[in-house]
């Protein structure tokens, strides 16, 4: 009761001394719709249940970190002391030449939990087997010195035939290579070539998404000209990457030469969709819009197809690190 009286007293006091404060009528308050920024979804696939918390948010940021290291433990077949993911001098966003900030943009971030039901009936046990932080959309510059990366990174490489031909080095006796170089640098010189690159084992050209140090064309992968004829692409299909080489052109590259990656399509401004970082106690298939991504045990990063596009020149030479601090040790 005392509290009530004190409350009334304070209310009167407030009413007399702060006349500008006015109550909001229910009718007006009901117009507010901001509370719909959170959605919670439950989905079931086989013996797996997923609970996703999606936050309706537009985020833009410029941040830097000395070290991002996830999952540092000894893993069979991997170097001692290595990590699932290790990136030094990490940054999201950049600083333009005029000193303005070019932020990294995220839309609708979400957190998702994966549960596995083991057994059946009354003895069915629920296991928490995975958690991920994802982004509905992401766009901007991701910078860092990548030492190890575990995940699924699909890179689209594009460029003119003329540049590709300049990288081909054919032995005098290799008539097939010479012929191909003539076509690429002549007939197809102004055509736009395309290739897909993934995390790879540089010693054999096989895909290797665990503690990867290289990205490149996997064995059997071919070049294509998306706007070319079927015959043209048939011809190109004859030549495929093998042991990180295609027509005497190197097709695997160390991740460390890519200091800054463009997330999303920098030419069209289209953001990358389905980017996430996750941790699983066993292989978990995460679903986005009906498409599944198999995430291996441990820490995992996913940048889906189209999430990164880079030119042949950038693929061969690497990409320059952008400025991420106003006093930047890489620039000042």
């Amino acid at each position, binding site marked *: 009761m*005392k509290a009530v*009286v*004190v409350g009334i*007293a304070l209310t*009167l*006091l407030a009413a*007399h*001394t702060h006349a500008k404060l006015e109550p909001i009528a229910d009718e007006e308050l009901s*117009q507010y*719709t*901001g*509370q*719909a*920024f*959170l*959605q*919670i*979804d*439950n989905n*079931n696939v086989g013996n797996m*249940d997923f609970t996703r918390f999606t*936050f*309706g*948010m*537009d*985020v*833009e*940021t410029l*941040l*830097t*970190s*000395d*070290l*991002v*290291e996830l999952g*540092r*433990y000894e893993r069979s077949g991997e170097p001692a002391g290595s990590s699932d993911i290790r990136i030094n*001098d990490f940054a999201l*966003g950049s*600083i333009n030449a005029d000193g*303005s*900030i070019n932020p990294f943009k995220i839309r609708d971030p979400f957190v998702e939990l994966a549960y596995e039901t083991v057994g059946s009936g009354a003895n*069915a*046990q*629920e*296991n*928490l087997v995975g958690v991920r932080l994802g982004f509905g959309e992401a766009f901007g510059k991701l910078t860092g*010195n990548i030492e190890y990366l575990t995940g699924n990174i699909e890179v689209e490489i594009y460029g003119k035939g003329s540049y590709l031909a300049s990288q081909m080095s054919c032995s005098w006796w290799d008539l097939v290579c010479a012929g191909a170089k003539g076509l690429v640098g002549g007939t197809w010189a102004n055509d736009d070539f395309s290739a897909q690159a993934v995390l790879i084992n540089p010693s054999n050209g096989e895909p290797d998404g665990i503690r990867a140090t290289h990205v490149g064309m996997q064995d059997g992968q071919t070049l294509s000209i998306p706007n070319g004829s079927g015959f043209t692409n048939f011809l190109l299909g004859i030549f495929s990457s093998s042991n990180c080489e295609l027509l005497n052109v190197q097709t695997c590259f160390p991740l*460390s030469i890519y*200091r800054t990656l463009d997330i999303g399509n920098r030419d069209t401004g289209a953001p990358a969709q389905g980017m996430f970082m996750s941790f699983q*106690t066993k292989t978990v298939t995460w679903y986005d819009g009906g498409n599944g991504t198999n995430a291996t045990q*441990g820490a995992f990063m996913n940048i889906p197809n189209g999430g990164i596009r880079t030119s042949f020149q950038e693929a061969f*030479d690497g*990409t320059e*690190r952008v400025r991420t*601090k106003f*006093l930047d*040790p*890489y620039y*000042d």
Partner: protein
Amino acid sequence: MTKWLPLLVLGCCISAQADLVPVDDAALGEVQGAGLGVVFENFAFEAGESVSAGNRLDISGITNSSGQPVVLGVSQFYIAGSGSNQGANVIGNPVNLGRLAYPFNLELVNGDVLGISDKAIFEFTAPSRLIGQSSGNDSMLVLATENRTERRFPGLPVATGSRVDRVTGIDTSVLTSREGERPDMGVRFDVNVSGTTTQSLQSHITGLAVDGSYVRLWGDNNEMIGNLGIKAVADSLTFFACNEDGNNCGDNVVFTDFIIESELGSGEDQPVTFEVDASGNFTVEVGSIAGKSNSFYQNYYNNGPRTDVYIGDVTVAGQSFGSTTISNLQIQYLKATSRDL
């Protein structure tokens, strides 16, 4: 007599209101209150065991992407002393939250002391920290550094300076909270979609300390401005799932030696603001540091607000997934605006 005191206060207020005059920021900024220290001795809290009997907090008004109603249930919250055994030993197992020498503190601080000129700062602080014997500052993390050897592009100069390479130790001498002042806590979450609950998630913390955390708030240009410091350490964080009845629980996912030290905002130079617009959506902004002087940047990158996160080990059913480190993360700009989904 005491029951009439509020009425006397009321009468006093009504008759004396004409003498109340606003105090400007500059005058208020001179105020240096002694503050109010808060200590909870022999504290234990248990929100109730039986979820089905209604011992829970239901957060409704949420939908899924199909528009079906979703209820997020929060229950079985507890705070207890060490050895709570995931909520089984709460009553009779109290904990001290703070102590007289190192209490939780509410205070009105002269902004000049904090480098925020002519402002009165409302400050809430957890028990303070000490300078660590190993870390050499008020961080619990003992860090090893390495010199940069990379270039931003082949042929260009090698970058300068050093950066964090790894965490080599945890310095508990930083904490003022003693063993009996670090509570165990736990909570259970249930997600109910259209009346169906599939499983529940339980989270348990042991040995929690939030020493060094703070919230500072002040006003300027009709905005609420703040600086935040969230510093927490826990001996362990354990997560596991159970069925909808809270039974048949699965393997524990255990984070050991969990540490987060996060500072958001830096005085007036990098304010943190929170606004709600007419549509009901909100914006949280950590101010941009663009356009400052070189001396500011020098100080900001060496001593400015930073975030460090460290997990000593993650284990699941006895299998180790190793440590996780995010070190010297600095937010030079952040703007997050909510929108309707």
